[in-house]
């Protein structure tokens, strides 16, 4: 029985190329999880890290509750199916399948039984004495699957197994793999770049781009509620049509306007209530509509007059191309195969407004998304005590209280914050429900598996103190430390390529370069320590999780070689050289309420300059060049 948990996984090559960033995922037993994304997004790298074929730069992987970071692939109880099958060419199929078991010193009769069983399932029993070169592609793939099955693994890993097969065979093997999953009842982790495979096979899909997870959800939720433009356009063929429109509030009603003074669509009330924030009103946004949601007939209020420029008859449907204001490319609509529309016709295209999507123009995030954090104005004295104790600095500035939508509970519990919540809309996402509403006049969104009727109702909500964080009102930086890292989680950052809080600031360091920083505090968590550091120049707050020995190694890819903790003083020493970068006399634990003592000097081994001069040098050098 194997859950697979990936915790804060990073993979960095040569200290520069960040292949996988902050990958967090919990895979339940017997799930079929698909990693999908364009080439180079890090999905195969993540799979290989789970298999043990690649080292993990930072983070933890658990297979069935066992930490497997340092375990050899053969001891992880996994099986892998490769894209090019990787069968041993000089051995017969029987020998191919028995190789792994022989290495484990399994008795011959048991091996025989297992192989016969697997061959039976895959329909290759009469091919067992042949060599791989005497088989077709599909047969070879089955042998590769068979080799994986006989090991009786906890987790099956499949790395684009169908990419080398022709289209017809691919469709056939897809259903066979799905059948296999149902029969074997084991966890499957499948990597592909083909969105059709992902949608048809997975129970949950992880969409990745440039090393970041974009969204994790069921196929239908990903299709109907994409969290950003990338996911919206990646799934679905032909691609979703995106239009640049203006969100206008006219006399209390919300409209989207195509172009300056152009056609207006009224945004239905229930859709308006689902907006993640009202601040987008009066601004340019991106309006999305899938081709199959544009029809020849429908509500007159949502139609646009267009000239048909291209017609593509696919047999099962007809694709109609035209131009609409707000979109430079063709707008594509999928009509029935029997449509009477012809080239150069002038027709009305009807938009199905219930299926509309809206995206922000600057960060491409969906305006209907469930936000990562709910921000509320709540007075600090209303919060349970433990919250402010976790704070990294004086809470004198204006603050907001934030918590995750899934952490909202509806039953009273100890050490909770109680709030009054008015639900205005309930949207069903099949696996869970999303509640939209107001709390103290502010918008609040909750995600729950509990059942709620779609009507306006008042409830009480409870949020555990551990799930509450405090944020600075201006910068939205988190001011309380969590159990683990991610202290500078700024919402929306996951959608921006390559921009992640701590990796930006902690790239390769030169002997001369250094970072002026103050150590705010450190938390002891058993055999680990959280180091909360504030960078002087940018004011960013960072947290590092370190193991506490006398020589401590940082577990994140920040390339500090060692942290020496001696008599309450903490020193961060750079990798590759023994120069001290930060020498801090930090002290105190938060719950002792001692004065936070942070005195930091830049100590350069050779010259022992004082801080001012080094500060000057850093200003001269400018930004840390990540291409160093």
């Amino acid at each position, binding site marked *: 029985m194997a859950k697979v948990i990936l915790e804060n996984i990073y993979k960095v090559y040569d200290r520069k190329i960040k292949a996988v960033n902050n990958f967090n995922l919990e895979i339940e037993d017997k799930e079929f999880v698909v990693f999908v994304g364009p080439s180079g997004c890090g999905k195969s790298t993540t799979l290989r890290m789970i298999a043990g074929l690649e080292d993990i730069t930072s983070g933890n992987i658990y297979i069935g509750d066992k930490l497997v970071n340092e375990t050899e692939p053969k001891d992880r109880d996994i099986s892998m199916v*490769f894209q090019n099958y990787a069968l*041993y060419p*000089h051995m017969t199929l029987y020998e191919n399948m028995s*190789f792994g078991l022989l*290495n484990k010193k399994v008795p011959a009769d048991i091996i025989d039984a297992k192989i016969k069983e697997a061959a039976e399932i895959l329909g290759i029993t009469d091919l067992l004495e042949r060599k791989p070169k005497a088989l077709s592609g599909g047969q070879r793939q089955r042998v590769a699957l068979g080799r994986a099955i006989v090991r009786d693994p906890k987790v099956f890993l499949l790395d684009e197994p169908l990419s080398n097969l022709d289209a017809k065979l691919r469709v056939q093997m897809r259903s066979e793999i799905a059948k296999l999953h149902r029969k074997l009842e084991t966890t499957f982790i499948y990597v592909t770049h083909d969105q059709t495979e992902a949608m048809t096979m997975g129970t949950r899909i992880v969409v990745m781009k440039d090393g970041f997870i974009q969204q994790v959800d069921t196929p239908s939720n990903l299709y109907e509620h994409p969290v950003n433009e990338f996911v919206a356009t990646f799934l679905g063929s032909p691609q979703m049509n995106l239009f640049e429109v203006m969100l206008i509030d006219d006399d209390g009603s919300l409209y989207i306007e195509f172009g300056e003074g152009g056609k207006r669509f009224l945004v239905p009330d229930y859709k308006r209530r689902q907006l993640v924030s009202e601040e987008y009103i009066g601004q340019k946004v991106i309006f999305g509509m899938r081709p199959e949601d544009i029809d020849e007939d429908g509500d007159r209020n949502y139609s646009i007059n267009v000239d048909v420029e291209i017609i593509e008859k696919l047999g099962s449907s007809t694709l109609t191309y035209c131009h609409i204001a707000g979109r430079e490319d063709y707008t594509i609509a999928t009509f029935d195969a029997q449509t009477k529309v012809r080239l150069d016709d002038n027709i009305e295209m009807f938009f199905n407004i219930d299926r509309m999507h809206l995206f922000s123009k600057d960060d491409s995030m969906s305006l209907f998304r469930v936000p990562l954090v709910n921000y509320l104005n709540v007075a600090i004295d209303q919060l349970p005590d433990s919250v402010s104790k976790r704070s990294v600095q004086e809470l004198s500035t204006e603050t907001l209280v934030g918590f995750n939508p899934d952490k909202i509970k509806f039953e009273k519990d100890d050490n909770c914050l109680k709030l009054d919540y008015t639900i205005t809309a309930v949207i069903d996402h099949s696996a869970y429900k999303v509640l939209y509403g107001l709390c103290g006049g502010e918008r609040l969104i909750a995600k729950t598996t509990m059942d709620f009727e779609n009507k306006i109702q008042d409830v009480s909500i409870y949020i555990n103190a551990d799930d509450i964080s405090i944020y600075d009102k201006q910068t939205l930086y988190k001011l309380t430390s969590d159990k683990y890292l991610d202290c500078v989680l700024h919402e929306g950052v996951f959608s921006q390529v390559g921009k992640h809080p701590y990796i930006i600031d902690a790239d390769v360091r030169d002997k001369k370069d250094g970072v002026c920083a103050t150590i705010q505090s450190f938390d002891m968590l058993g055999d680990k320590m959280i180091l909360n550091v504030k960078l002087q120049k940018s004011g960013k707050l960072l947290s590092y999780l370190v193991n506490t020995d006398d020589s401590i190694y940082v577990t994140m890819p920040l390339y500090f070689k060692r942290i020496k903790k001696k008599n309450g003083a903490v020193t961060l020493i750079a990798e590759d050289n023994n120069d001290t970068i930060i020498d801090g006399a930090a002290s105190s634990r938060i719950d002792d309420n001692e004065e936070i003592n942070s005195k930091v000097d830049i100590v350069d081994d050779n010259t022992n300059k004082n801080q001012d001069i080094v500060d000057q040098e850093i200003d001269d050098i400018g930004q840390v060049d990540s291409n160093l």
Partner: protein
Amino acid sequence: MIKKNSKNVKLKRAASTSLTYAILIGVSIVFLFPCLWLILASFSKSGSIYSFDGFFPSEFSFDSFITLFTDTSSSGYNYPKWFLNTLFISVMSCIFSTLLVIATAYTVSRFEFKAKKPLMKTTLVLGMFPSFMGMTAVYILMTQFNLVNSHWGLILIYSCGAPMGYLVQKGFFDTIPTSIYEAARIDGASNAKVFRTITLPLSKPIIVFTALTSFTWPWSDFILPKLLLKEKDMYTVAVGLMNLGETEFSRFAAGAVFIAVPIVILYFFLIKYMISGMTAGAVKE
């Protein structure tokens, strides 16, 4: 009009084919003539080169071959012993060279380690220098090891110099897909097991190629044995034959022909493997 054109085309084609054949025949003659002449000379009845009628001998007999093996007494001329020496040196060099070259090439192909690139480049460049450049140094080294006039000294030099030419073998090992090694790793095979059960069986062509080339090199090498071997009984065929005088030319020819025979036989039997071994590294399957 069409007919005339086709005649023209046919003529042109015939002319170019004839030219090609003419060139090929010419080159073949230049190439094969010395061999043919040597073979005929070895069958000559009289020993001396001056008794030839023009290019070719006047009378033919097997005498030279017979005396080659029977006359072992005069002036330390011991062809059978030389033949066995050569065989011994070549076989031992073949074994050790193959082991070393295959191991080197496999390691360089499969593993990453510090200074891999500099090591590869240095080895390649050093291997390009002709072997006799280091003659003096080799001699001095061998005297210090007391390996002058010893077959093992020669074997040592041939074997240890062989890995310089690892490039072809490395190219071959590069064609084995990494995913096979990864699958084996997941299946629980250690590095040694992977080499034994997966790499070696797949490498038969390149091993044969390596063995063959490391056999033929010491077989016909002259400089190194001449440098290191002092006693007439220790000579290889190449060195020994050089000591024959002019009057014994047909014996020389016979010796030369005979020493080529085993190699020719070997090549005939293993030519298939040779070609697949040579071209294996060239194109990725």
